[in-house]
């Protein structure tokens, strides 16, 4: 072994470029693992499908659709209503036709436009809420696991409370207090409530297994203080699991919104839950109306189910990446 080693020149590329390359490589690796999972792929396909649907509204409304007719809240197709009235049929809701692919709702608004508009809203809601949930959940988990004792107990009791939280009642009260309980506010509140809840507990137990790993001791011996260890070691090892749970959070957020909309508690421009609620108050969910005017109930409710399931399936697909033990050899 040479006594004086010559200092070679530093790495040929700059550090950030190397890191970018590594990121791309790991992304490619993870994708090839994800590809193998039929559940994950199915989920991804559904998400892409709804992505297309969500993209449909802004494209169509700016090109072929007449906003007077196709606005999801205020649209009305005078022509069609007249034609139907003349034919002795109920004007609205009208069944699917060439101009209204999923028909119209009891107020004459195009159902597909509503569906498409809501899709974007659902994505928005789901992702924002999920990001907030994961951010809070990861932070709480890392702090609780690392500092233990009082901090741990505090956050775990908060989590217990959140788990038992009666969301519906809470939002009913909240809607009375807050004037404009819109999608954005909803996303934030949902994010916070879920962030301190069950996900914190799950991530905390993972964080506890990370905390006792020798590399954390090694970081301490190098001179790292609490925050260095949490930011540089614990949280990065939590992120795969956090990301996984983010998928499940999206599911929860979308579903929660649907339920809250159904109770008419929130003030959204349009959402799938709202579509079901409106069909309900107009009485079209009773008896065999549900089947006769199927386009009022099934598209939104199936969409809720499908999108929630899709994110869940993608989460299952991620599970194999995050938990290498699950991979089939």
């Amino acid at each position: 072994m040479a006594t004086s080693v010559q200092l070679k020149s530093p790495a040929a590329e700059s550090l950030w470029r190397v890191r970018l390359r590594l990121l791309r490589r790991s992304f490619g690796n993870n994708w090839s693992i994800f590809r193998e999972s039929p559940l994950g792929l199915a989920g991804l396909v559904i998400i892409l499908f709804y992505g297309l649907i969500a993209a449909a509204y802004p494209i169509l409304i700016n090109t072929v659709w007449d906003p007077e007719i196709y606005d999801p809240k205020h649209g009305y197709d005078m022509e069609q209503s007249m034609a139907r009235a003349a034919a002795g049929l109920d004007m609205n809701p009208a069944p699917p036709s060439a101009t209204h692919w999923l028909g119209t709702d009891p107020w004459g608004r195009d159902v597909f436009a509503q569906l498409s508009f809501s899709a974007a809203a659902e994505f928005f809601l789901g992702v924002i809420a999920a990001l907030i949930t994961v951010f809070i959940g990861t932070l709480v988990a890392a702090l609780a696991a690392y500092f233990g004792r009082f901090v741990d107990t505090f956050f775990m009791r908060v989590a217990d409370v959140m788990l038992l939280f009666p969301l519906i009642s809470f939002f009913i009260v909240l809607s009375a207090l807050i004037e404009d309980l819109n999608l954005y506010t909803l996303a934030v509140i949902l994010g916070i409530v879920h962030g301190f809840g069950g996900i914190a507990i799950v991530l905390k137990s993972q964080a506890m297994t990370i905390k006792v790993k020798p590399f954390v001791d090694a970081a301490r011996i190098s001179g790292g203080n609490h925050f260095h260890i949490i930011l540089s070691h614990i949280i990065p090892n939590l992120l795969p699991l956090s990301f996984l749970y983010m998928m499940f959070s999206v599911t929860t957020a979308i579903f929660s919104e649907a339920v809250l909309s159904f109770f008419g508690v929130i003030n959204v421009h349009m959402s799938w839950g709202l579509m079901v609620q409106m069909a309900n108050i107009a009485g079209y969910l009773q008896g065999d109306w549900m089947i006769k005017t199927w386009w009022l109930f099934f598209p939104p409710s199936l969409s809720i189910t499908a999108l929630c399931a899709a994110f869940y399936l993608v989460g299952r697909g991620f599970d194999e990446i995050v938990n290498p033990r699950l991979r089939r050899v």
Partner: protein
Amino acid sequence: MNQALPANVSIWVQDVRKLFPVQKGLFVRGKLQHVHAVDHLDFYIQEGESFGLVGESGCGKTTTGSLLVRLLEPTSGHILMRRPQVRGFVLQQGGTPLGAISIRLDEEKRALSVVAADVAPGANPRHFKQQADVALSQLARKPEQLSQVKIHFGENGRGIVMDHISRFQPPSAAQNGRGAWDVWAQRARNVEFMDIAHLDGAGLKRFRRHVQMIFQDPYGSLNPRKTIYDIVAEPLKVQKIGTLHEREAQVMEMLEVVGLTPAESFMFRYPHELSGGQRQRVAVARAIIVRPTFVVADEPTSMLDVSIRTGVMRLMQNLQKEFGISYLYITHDLAVARYMCERIAVMYLGKIVEMGPTEEILQNPLHPYTRALISAVPVPDPAYKRQPIELKGSIPKPIDPHPRCRFYDRCPLASKRCEAEVHPALVDRGNGHFVACYEV
């Protein structure tokens, strides 16, 4: 431990204890019990030496390692680490101590500075200062003399002698640790040796540059989400050493030194892409990159394949020679300790029962536990007929142990004296071979 230390002591553990409270259920009657993981531990490690700590599970060797790197804080006792470049001396003239003085050598500026000076009781302060100045000016001309344990200064035929502080006998047990001499010489000793036992904050962080650790598990000791570069550069980053470019260069150099060549190809790989032996080399690189004076190696090769082990062991020895590092080598494998360590200490239930030069202990073990341990080690020679010494029972948990000898329950030589008296102290039987036993 009743002995004057050699002058080149790097780490000095004094009377260290580590007690862990035993967790009982919610409703417990009676007082809290403690596990005595490490109890009244006394030993020292010299500069550039490899000191082995051997024992079975539960003996406290891992806890000792954790205490020395301050992953754990001792319940009581002192862990003294010599500050680099500071030496304490006692000035004497004609056999009478004049005072104690601590000198620091700033290598970059080649300048000597006095860090502390205390007059001995009964000596003339002005005289002390005079002689001290003379000594200093002479030393300034030849600073290499600082590393000696005894420096003579002839001046007008009245020779001054500077004795290194470690050559002073610590006060005997009868004086209860405090003698008149101690007060004025204490500072000299304290300045040269830093007590890390209860450091915290900035002092602890600075200390971390001097002591590092290599762990047993090559898979768990590297963060799987970081690149090799990140892992090895972390100590530099945390200690804010060097610029980004300098760190990159240092990491490359370190990877070459530990045998991971070509360094460029290893820099940005992840731990799971490396084999066990390679990962352990990364762990070594991380430990050495801050140029510590002392490294604790906790069973660094026990989880590696046999043919890889010797490579890592040899690497550690080479690094020791090249960088002058001392090791605390923790292992349960006596054969490995024989190969790696110049001195070893055998631990049992939180205490050192035997300590001394490795070959001496292995060829001539005195303590009954050491003898039983050695006799139980399998030998890779089918012709050798081992005579294992039977010990009754198995290793107990050291929960609030009886003050008598910890080995009493299992010892084949146990006597009435062993039952009646407290745990025996470590006594030098000659040649630096210490044993804690009444019956041998």
